[in-house]
């Protein structure tokens, strides 16, 4: 980036089920929270990015109109679960290039309106036509990982136990009740080897951030410690109709390496990370993608406690997608809001003490012949 970019404000609402609200009603207070926290005025905001996979067209106009942020470019972006992180990626680039001084980015989805069960994929896609959904896809990933590395289904439950333990300390998490391995293993079948508690919940959520240049940050002169967007990387997956490894995430590995190269920050520098644990196996696979451990050693890393609160490199202190919740388009920016607050030392009971460097990671999947459709990673530093 040519010009430094900072997170000036964050807004996030507890994820859960809010069946009596519209997307707009749900998202507006969250954006307002981020705007107020940032200290910017109407005139400071040059551009708005909005993401909602299931909310309908022009959600950005729906939300920003309520806040008088109109007449500026309002850009609606969609890349499934990566959507709002893509918004941050683009907004940061715009500010870094000097084409904007400040931007607001929001993600909102209300999955409870879709009913229960696996989320619908694009109905024209071959995988979706054949009944393949995200739980089955990740379950096959888990089976292969178990085959290659000799771990058991109940080992995956330890990921959920950690996520729920963290979520229990986060008042914004959808699930705030700890669980045991036995409870995870006893939950109902979803897709072998997954039980219900190996999977992130469906729910409603919204999150927002305000990004700005150094000039506007100094002009506002806020009270919170400055958190810089050290770098962002976005990749689509490769189209691959043939065999490929499901245990080594190509797009996440590539995105992670590019982020390290871009920022000069190495895996050992990371204090805290929010990564895409949509299903329990994902956290283990992504430990390896981010070089937190060698291939096949993810379970040992988890069991070491290094990635739990109190450890030296805490992963998903918010509870992650499994416990904080995963309202698709809200997740990317929710992660960035979470890490920003962590680096500012205001995360309360789930604070990672002394955190100075953190990263976020979301993948958007669900397209035939793509390991993942998209992957967005963001590095933040204090």
């Amino acid at each position, binding site marked *: 980036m040519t010009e430094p970019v900072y997170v000036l404000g964050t807004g996030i609402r507890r994820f859960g089920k809010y069946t009596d609200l519209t997307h707009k009603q749900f998202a507006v207070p969250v954006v307002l929270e981020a705007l107020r926290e940032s200290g910017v005025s109407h005139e400071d905001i040059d551009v708005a990015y909005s993401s909602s996979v299931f909310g309908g067209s022009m959600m950005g106009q729906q939300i920003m109109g309520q806040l008088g942020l109109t007449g500026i470019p309002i850009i609606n972006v969609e890349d499934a679960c990566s959507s709002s992180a893509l918004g941050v990626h683009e907004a940061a680039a715009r500010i870094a290039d000097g084409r904007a001084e400040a931007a607001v980015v929001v993600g909102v989805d209300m999955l409870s309106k879709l009913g229960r069960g696996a989320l619908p994929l694009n109905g024209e896609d071959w995988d979706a036509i*054949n009944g393949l959904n995200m739980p089955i896809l990740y379950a*096959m990933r888990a*089976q*292969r990982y178990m085959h290659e590395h000799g771990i058991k289904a109940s080992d995956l439950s330890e990921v959920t136990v950690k996520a729920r333990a963290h979520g229990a300390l986060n008042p914004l998490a959808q699930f705030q009740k700890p669980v045991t391995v036995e409870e995870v293993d006893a939950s109902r079948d979803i897709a072998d*080897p997954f039980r219900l508690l190996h999977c992130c919940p469906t729910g409603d959520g919204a999150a927002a951030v305000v990004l700005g240049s150094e000039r506007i940050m100094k002009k506002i002169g806020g009270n919170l410690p400055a958190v810089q967007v050290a770098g962002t990387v976005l990749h689509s997956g490769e189209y691959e*109709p*043939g065999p490929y490894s499901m245990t080594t995430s190509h797009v996440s590995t590539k995105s992670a390496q590019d982020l390290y190269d871009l920022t000069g920050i190495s895996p050992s520098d990371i204090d805290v990370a929010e990564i895409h644990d949509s299903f329990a196996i994902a956290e283990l696979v992504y430990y390896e993608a981010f070089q937190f451990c060698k291939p096949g050693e993810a379970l040992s890393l988890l069991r070491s406690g290094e990635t739990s609160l109190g450890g030296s490199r805490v992963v998903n202190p918010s509870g992650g997608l499994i416990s904080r919740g995963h309202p698709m388009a809200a997740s990317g920016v929710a992660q960035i809001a979470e890490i920003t607050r962590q680096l500012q030392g205001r995360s309360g009971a789930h604070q990672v003490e002394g955190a100075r460097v953190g990263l976020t990671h979301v993948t958007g999947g669900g397209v035939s012949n793509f390991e993942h459709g998209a992957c967005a990673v963001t590095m933040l530093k204090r």
Partner: protein
Amino acid sequence: MPLPDLNPPAASTEASEPTPPPYACSHCSDCGYNNFPPADVCPNCWSSTPQLQELSHEGVLYSFSTLVGRDSSQFVGYVDLPEKIRVFGLLTTTDRPECGTPVSFAEARPVGNGPCFVFNVSTTQEA
């Protein structure tokens, strides 16, 4: 098992087709790239003349899971074929299979009710 219709010059697969889709990939005679599901344009060289090519009946189960219904569940999985194509299919076994097990094509079913392609799982396990 009826052979797929290999006559159509192009190979788009529509979700609304009442007949089983061809058990085939599209093969690009210009660059040799195989694509699945069959498509009218080769993504490798942009040739617009790929032809349908029947897929091998013998493959290897890369990984598997279950399609859980209200009263029962069925094994499903990714099958890797020699044409460097991976297809998702229903497995006829009621016993939990293993990754790496040989499988053979059994039948193609019309779209709209789960996996179109059905595979028998060998009782011989590979390493």
